[in-house]
């Protein structure tokens, strides 16, 4: 099947061939069915005609036999008082009708008292002479014979079953003549209507066999004749003659078909049957023979009847097969030629697919579907070329932007302190921070510096993400650095940043921020929380907890003239304080579950004795693990501080 699937030419050729074959077969089947019917009708008519002609000749002889017998009957009945005259009558009937083999005029036992038990005047042909004798004796008890008993019991004229007659005569040499005969027997009645005897005229069946055997409508057809009880007395196989009947084969094996034909024939029906004879399908045409109860049939092998038709069928099939082969060849060539531009187009497509977009298509010079396909393909190729050009430009632009973003990211990262330890000369400060934007650039920020033995620091989260947030972050960070360096308290720093950011804030962006100032000498921390997450505080000997914030201020940049309040913690030395943005506690896994505050506190509990750098590293790992491959939804900024 693959062989046809891979080639349109092959599959088209196959399809056309199959369709042509189907149409042809249907037409052929119809034609031959009609022809067979016509031939069958013709054969039936022909066989019936032949059978009729032969039976007419046979019936003529049979009727002459019946007439001769009946003509003698009145003479016999008239001279019942003169038994010896019966010899004259029996001789006369044979003399007058040379086609007869013999005639018996037989009487009941002791009908003629002076003649004794047996009296049957018989005349028969014996070597071209007519021999007349009294045939009844102890060896030949004629009144037990079919021909006599039949007419007596039936009380009307009848034909006997065919039987083998053996004439024995001596003429210097003893001779025996065996032949098959059939007798026509008529009851003899006295004037009172009592049965007194029978006349039987014998007819040789040899002539009948020759007559019917000559009926041969087809080379292998043959004729058969069966008697009343189905016995063959004409058959091409001599071993069956009088030895077998049409029913013999049904004795051992059921053969309903043969039984049906046999019964139809012995019942004197006329018709035609199809049946298997000696393993061959045959048509059997049969008709009854006169009043005999016998039946004649012509057996015609089906192959003979339909031989001409079968020859014609075979020739037509041969011509069709040859035609199909030629058609397949021509069709293949035509389809190949028609589809050649498609093949070329396929090759061109391969070339274009390989990257040679500017490869020009040849002009096929056609205006049909294939020509239009070529034109469409050419247009598509041109569009493809244009598109790819645009793609190149866009890609280049994207690459440039990406590069710029990378630069911006570097710049942004360089805006926050990234060198740790941040204060190598001071052993009392353990500070570590990191910032990981969700995109190339982020909106988080942190910063710290020491001024006048005070550590100023901040951590913030700008609303939104990406470039706008990063720019806002940069501005915020710079403002924080400038203002904080003037040693203001955290709430003043917050107030000033808010004032600066609020001015001309058309984008209405804002930033949450935790601003702190730690007196390194006393450990006192002043801070101002502007809408930012409360830091996690880990005081030695206690569990990690969120730093309680009394005054939570609004985020910075929302509006000017806001009032910011600060708070103070007397001494934070020994505490571990974690400042973070919501990229930590709101980190999501693929099932959108948050990292959460509880997990954060629990994690922090486990990191009690860790340095700030280790704490942040472990937290990053914990977040990474929680996200389980999910993309970060927000910027993550962590700042961990521990004063000794």
């Amino acid at each position, binding site marked *: 099947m693959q062989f046809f699937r891979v080639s349109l030419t092959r599959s088209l050729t196959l399809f056309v061939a199959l369709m042509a074959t189907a149409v042809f077969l249907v037409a052929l089947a119809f034609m031959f069915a009609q022809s067979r019917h016509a031939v069958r009708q013709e054969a039936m008519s022909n066989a019936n005609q032949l059978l009729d002609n032969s039976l007419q000749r046979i019936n003529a002889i049979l009727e002459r036999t019946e007439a001769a017998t009946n003509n003698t009957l009145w003479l016999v009945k008239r001279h019942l008082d003169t038994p010896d005259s019966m010899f004259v009558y029996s001789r006369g009937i044979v003399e007058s009708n040379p086609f007869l083999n013999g005639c018996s005029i037989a009487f009941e036992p002791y009908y003629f008292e002076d003649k004794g038990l047996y009296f049957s005047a018989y005349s028969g042909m014996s070597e071209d002479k007519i021999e007349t004798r009294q045939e009844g004796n102890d060896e030949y*008890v004629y009144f037990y*014979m*079919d021909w006599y008993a039949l007419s007596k019991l039936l009380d009307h004229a009848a034909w006997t*079953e065919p039987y083998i007659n053996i004439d024995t005569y001596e003429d210097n040499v003893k001779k025996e003549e065996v032949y098959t005969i059939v007798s026509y027997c008529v009851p003899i009645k006295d004037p009172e209507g009592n049965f007194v005897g029978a006349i039987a005229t014998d007819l040789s069946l040899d002539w009948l066999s020759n007559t019917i055997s000559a009926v041969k409508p087809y080379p292998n057809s043959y004729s058969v004749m069966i008697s009343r*009880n189905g016995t063959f007395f004409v058959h091409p196989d001599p071993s069956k003659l009088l030895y*077998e009947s049409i029913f*013999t084969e049904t*004795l051992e094996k059921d053969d309903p078909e043969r039984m049906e034909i046999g019964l139809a024939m*012995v019942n004197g029906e006329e018709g035609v049957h199809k049946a298997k004879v000696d393993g061959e399908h045959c048509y059997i045409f049969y008709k009854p023979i006169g009043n005999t109860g016998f039946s004649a049939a012509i057996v015609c092998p089906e192959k003979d009847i339909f031989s001409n038709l079968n020859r014609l069928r075979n020739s037509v099939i041969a011509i069709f097969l040859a035609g199909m082969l030629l058609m397949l060849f021509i069709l293949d060539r035509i389809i190949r030629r028609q589809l050649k531009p498609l093949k070329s187009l396929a090759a061109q497509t391969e070339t274009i697919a390989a990257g040679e977009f500017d490869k020009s298509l040849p002009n096929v010079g056609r205006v049909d579907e294939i020509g239009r396909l070529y034109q469409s393909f050419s247009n598509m190729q041109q569009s493809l070329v244009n598109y790819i050009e645009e793609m190149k430009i866009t890609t280049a632009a994207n690459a440039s932007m990406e590069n710029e973003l990378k630069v911006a990211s570097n710049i942004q990262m360089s805006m926050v302190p990234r060198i740790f330890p941040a204060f190598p000369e001071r052993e009392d400060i353990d500070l570590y921070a990191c910032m990981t934007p969700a995109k190339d650039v982020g909106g988080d920020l942190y910063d710290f510096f020491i001024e006048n033995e005070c550590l100023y620091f901040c951590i913030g989260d700008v609303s939104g993400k990406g470039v706008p947030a990063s720019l806002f972050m940069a501005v915020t960070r710079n403002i924080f650095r400038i203002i904080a360096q003037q040693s203001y308290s955290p709430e003043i720093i917050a107030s000033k940043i808010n004032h600066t950011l609020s001015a001309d804030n058309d984008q209405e962006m804002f930033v949450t921020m935790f601003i702190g100032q730690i007196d390194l000498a006393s450990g006192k921390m002043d801070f101002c929380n502007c809408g930012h997450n409360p830091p996690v505080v880990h005081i030695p000997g206690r569990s990690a907890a969120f730093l309680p914030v009394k005054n939570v201020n609004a985020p910075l940049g929302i509006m000017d003239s806001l009032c910011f309040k600060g708070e103070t913690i007397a001494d934070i030395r020994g505490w571990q304080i974690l400042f973070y943005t919501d990229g930590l506690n709101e980190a999501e896994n693929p099932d959108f579950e948050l990292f959460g505050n509880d997990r954060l506190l629990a994690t922090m509990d486990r990191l009690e004795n860790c340095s700030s750098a280790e704490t942040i590293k472990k937290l990053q790992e914990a977040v990474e693990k929680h996200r389980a491959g999910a993309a970060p939804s927000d910027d993550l900024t962590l700042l961990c501080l521990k004063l000794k």
Partner: protein
Amino acid sequence: MKLRNINRISTAVLCCLFFAGSAAFAQKITFTPQWTAQAQFAGYYVAQEMGFYKEAGIEVDIVHPTITQTAYNLIRSGQSQLTTIQLCQAMELINDGVPLVNVLQTSMNNALVIVSKEDKNPLEQKGIRVGTWSSGFDQIAICMALKERLDYQWFRVASCINLFVAGAFDATLAMSYNEYYLLKQSGVKLTDKNVYRFCDHDYNVQEDGVYTTRSYYETHKDEVHRFAEASKRGWEWAAEHPEETLDIVMKYVKKDNIATNRTLQKLMLEEILRLQVDRESGQREFRLKPEMVKLANRLMLDNQILLNEVTYEQLTAH
């Protein structure tokens, strides 16, 4: 009238057999089956062809009756010493004064049937015309018809088949091994309804046996016994080798130009062999059963076919 004629003829035949037998001293035995060549006599053909008779030290000539050379002629001319007869026929002949001896009993069951037209029960039709053989074999049927008061009109003919098929008879007697199949071969439909089997209705009287005259038996006891033993051997071989037996039968059939065929002979052989098996013992016993003789006596005496009882001792060689 006709029955008496037949009896006369049969008596004459067996009388001749008696006298011819008395005069014969030759070692050669001529055996005449009661009918033309057919599988009914397969055991004898086998014994002849397989050399069982020769091995028994006797020379047997099997001569079938023909139209011109009937069994009667063969026996009258002294050419035949042994023949096959049915038990009832033999008893009738003995009753008529012909001293016969049963030297071998082959049949253990009765083969007689009455066949009537399709769908007609022969026992439900009184006064119908029934065909029978001109040569007899119908004693049991006559007894049954008289007992059942069927008032059949018997018609004796040489062969009943054609006349029955032609509609001349309402019913016909038939042998289950011969005419039964001939009727089937004539397209007659045979069913349990239109076929009455005597063996199934208290008339299971043995049939075929080999008989000779007592005088011949007395003077040739040894040869007769050897013939009987070899014939028995022939039948046993036939039962064991039915196909080969059929070949032998067909050889005899073809030689005598008998109008039959292999299928009919095969069916006949099967049936004959089946009839040789005793229903009680399931064996091929080859013996005349005293109770069978008693049954035949009772039936024929009751219906006056026999005037005096024929004893088992009268029938058998002793």
